[in-house]
């Protein structure tokens, strides 16, 4: 398309150019619609994963190198300090765990009383977030594990403090996750203090969730904790999600709108946990399809059969927010039914 020829040829060329432009525009619009509406192009995306892997690796390499260098020149003092912190954290986690296990026993017995045959087991898998910028106006992250490592679409993603998001694409090596703050994401949540169930919408801002349509009669205050309600069955119940920051009337004045700050650190992440929920039979008794979700008051989905390290995971963030446990002599006092103590 070189406009150096004579005028007539140039005009013809221009007309052809416009025609082709229109053709490509239509093609692009059709593609976008197909992608947006139907997800017809998922197979193509999966195929593209093969070339995306090395590309992401390359794009992230400057940061990786920088990080390696920082690690290498980190002086011993910093390492010792970190080690100290980690030991302390471990100690806290152990103390937490000690209390947790008694609660687990109690939970199992209570469920047996209720006649529930199933419990939710949580399995967790570590994955790292790759430093790759996708569209900065969408809240998405790339993980270094994919379907080859057992990652599945729909899995919940959390860090040590709370829910991060869910997996939306799982090609063999690199999965893509949507964060709870993405404008297109909605999380079913429950207010811990009152048990009110509602929805938390992402805002596109990494530090803000929005909860519209709260009736004024509902008692929601700044500082209230939100956990996943387990409704919709996408997320396990009881994972910390956010804390209410403000509550005010919406534009129409009919409902209250709350904003909340995510519990997880959505802006500074490194390692994350991918959760997988499985129903396991409590005992070898008959199989009856009981309610898949447990009572919401207790941190659900904690399985006594798992190794302690995993067992601590779903509950640790709870304590981190509510009441940090002092590792020393502080006996687990609060709402503990006597039966557990006298046993």
């Amino acid at each position: 398309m070189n406009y150096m020829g004579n005028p007539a040829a140039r005009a013809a060329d221009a007309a052809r150019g416009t025609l082709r432009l229109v053709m490509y525009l239509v093609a692009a619009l059709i593609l976008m619609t197909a992608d947006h509406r139907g997800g017809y192009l998922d197979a193509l995306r999966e195929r593209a994963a093969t070339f995306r892997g090395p590309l992401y690796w390359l794009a992230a390499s400057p940061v990786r190198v920088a990080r390696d260098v920082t690690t290498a020149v980190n002086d011993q003092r910093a390492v010792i300090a970190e080690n100290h912190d980690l030991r302390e954290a471990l100690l806290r986690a152990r103390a937490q765990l000690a209390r947790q296990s008694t609660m687990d026993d109690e939970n199992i017995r209570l469920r047996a009383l209720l006649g529930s045959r199933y419990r939710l087991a949580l399995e967790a898998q570590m994955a790292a977030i790759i430093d790759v910028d996708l569209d900065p106006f969408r809240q998405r992250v790339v993980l270094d594990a994919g379907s080859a490592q057992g990652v599945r679409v729909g899995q919940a993603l959390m860090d040590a403090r709370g829910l991060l998001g869910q997996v939306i694409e799982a090609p063999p090596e690199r999965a893509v996750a949507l964060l709870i703050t993405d404008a297109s994401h909605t999380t079913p949540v429950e207010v811990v203090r009152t048990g009110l169930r509602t929805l938390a919408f992402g805002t596109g801002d990494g530090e803000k969730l929005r909860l519209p349509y709260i009736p004024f009669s509902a008692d929601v205050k700044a500082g209230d904790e939100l956990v996943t309600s387990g409704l919709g069955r996408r997320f396990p119940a009881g994972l910390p999600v956010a804390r209410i920051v403000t509550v005010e009337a919406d534009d129409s004045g009919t409902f209250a709108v709350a904003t909340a700050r995510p519990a997880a650190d959505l802006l500074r992440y490194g390692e994350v946990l991918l959760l997988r929920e499985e129903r396991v039979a409590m005992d070898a008794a008959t199989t009856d399809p009981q309610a898949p979700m447990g009572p919401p008051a207790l941190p659900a989905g904690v399985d006594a059969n798992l190794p302690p390290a995993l067992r601590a995971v779903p509950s640790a963030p709870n304590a981190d927010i509510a009441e940090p446990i002092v590792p020393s002599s502080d006996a687990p006092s609060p709402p503990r039914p006597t039966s557990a103590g006298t046993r």
Partner: protein
Amino acid sequence: MSRPRFPALPLLASLVGGLLLTLAPLPLALAPFKPFWIAMIVIYWALEQPEHIGLGRVFLLGLICDLATGALLGEQALRLTIIVFIVFRFRARMRFFPMLQQSLAVFALLLNDRVIALALRLLSGAGWPDYNFWGAPLVGTLFWPWLFLLLDEMRRMPRRGSQ
């Protein structure tokens, strides 16, 4: 179309570089200001070596970018095609603009592209972006003269080497 072997190499190299730049992580505060690198590189080649750049190729390139960044498939294809079309229309003039004027033309192109991107966003149901959404064309324009010189250098290199 007979293609000399060498000049296509800088073109490909610059495009791969542009894609990497697009994906390379920036501090969070700076991320919205990331210029549309691929578009700027494509503008350069459309100005200087239009025989290697056609609407079809640019469309394909856009699709590759979409797949790489996980955007809506066809979004960048559409934006790039429009940019290249406009550049071809005004190529004869733009090419001989002084640098300042050329930068302004590039700013207009990038701004127009931002408007299109906004329209696509709104159509796809994402809300209005922040004000810094409009910062990227500005940053892109500031980088344009340097990118132009760099690519000019790249374009000449293999030719010099082969002679």
